């Protein structure tokens, strides 16, 4: 690559690096979800892997270090990187406690390469678990609730 091309490539990459540090303050309401099951479809469609139907699995995945996200009322997923100062985004206590909860969060939004990332400054309101999806789907996966001994 010639000198001009190298300069051009550098010029191309620099704006991206600068943009990466810019965030936008937002308030967003939605459910704290398990992003792998939601995105991959490994357990079924997106409606089945949220709410009470998927609560136990959401606990497993959060404790297992799978990233949690906030599924906003706008249908967007915001990948959560920090909650009220707790930066343990892989298997941390704060995110585990909020699994499946609907929250209103105030924080900083960062967008990069097609994904939204959220640093939650404050959980303004914890609305609790509000999506009663087990009424429709039962437990997802089916073995999440062990069958009682007879």
């Amino acid at each position, binding site marked *: 690559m010639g000198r*001009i*091309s190298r300069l*051009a*490539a550098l*010029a*191309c*990459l620099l704006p991206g690096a600068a943009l*990466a*540090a810019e*965030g936008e303050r937002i308030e967003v309401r939605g459910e704290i979800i398990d*992003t*792998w099951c*939601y*995105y*991959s*479809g*490994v357990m079924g469609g*997106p409606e089945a892997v949220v709410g*009470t139907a998927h*609560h*136990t*699995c959401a*606990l*497993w*995945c959060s*404790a*297992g*270090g*799978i*990233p949690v996200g906030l599924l906003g009322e706008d249908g*967007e*997923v915001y*990948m959560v*990187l*920090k909650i009220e100062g707790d*930066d*343990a*985004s*892989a*298997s941390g*206590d704060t995110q*585990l*406690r909020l*699994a*499946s909860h609907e929250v209103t969060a105030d924080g*900083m939004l*960062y967008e*990069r*390469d*097609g*994904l939204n990332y959220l*640093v939650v400054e404050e959980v303004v309101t914890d609305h609790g*678990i509000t999506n*009663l999806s*087990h009424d429709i789907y*039962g*437990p997802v996966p089916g073995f999440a*609730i062990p*069958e*009682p001994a007879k």
Partner: protein
Amino acid sequence: MKRIAITTAVICLGLPAMAQDFSEGSEAKSWNLAAEKPARFEATVVDMLCELTGDCAENCGDGKRQLGLLRAADDVLIYPNKNSQPAFTGAALELAPYCGATVEVDGLMIEDPELGATNIYLVQKIREVGESEWVTANSWTKKWAEAHPDAEGEGPWFRRDPRVNGMIEESGYLGLGLEADAAFIEEWF
């Protein structure tokens, strides 16, 4: 100056197009996911929070923070959500030993525009660039067992995890409380 500007435009527009297919040479095993595609590429292992916000931790947070893969070919930030174990386990602990290193990874990329899934990755194998041996990304359960010596017993880790079991004992499998749980279980089974 005009020549630099034109070259810049060509390269900037061209980079994403040049970096679309990373399946060549991949030996990733299928998970039979509708949106999966094999992907093998070189990348730098980064602390996601640090990369995006400048809030950095020593040693990428020692596995407590989510880690990313800054792909060498196009500077795209890939988010590894999953390791190779079918056990509700993420990728951060697998990548933590490589904080700041340039690695080659092999696995499955998830691209599902309807769900907004893009650059989501399941990592199956890792090796530092220049190394010949791959490391399988399946160490999570072993590390969990080492960290929870008192949780020995029958069954997979997620049935024995003290924090998860504490949450279920407190608010049930549905998260709605023990009374709601009992009523549902009686009806369901």
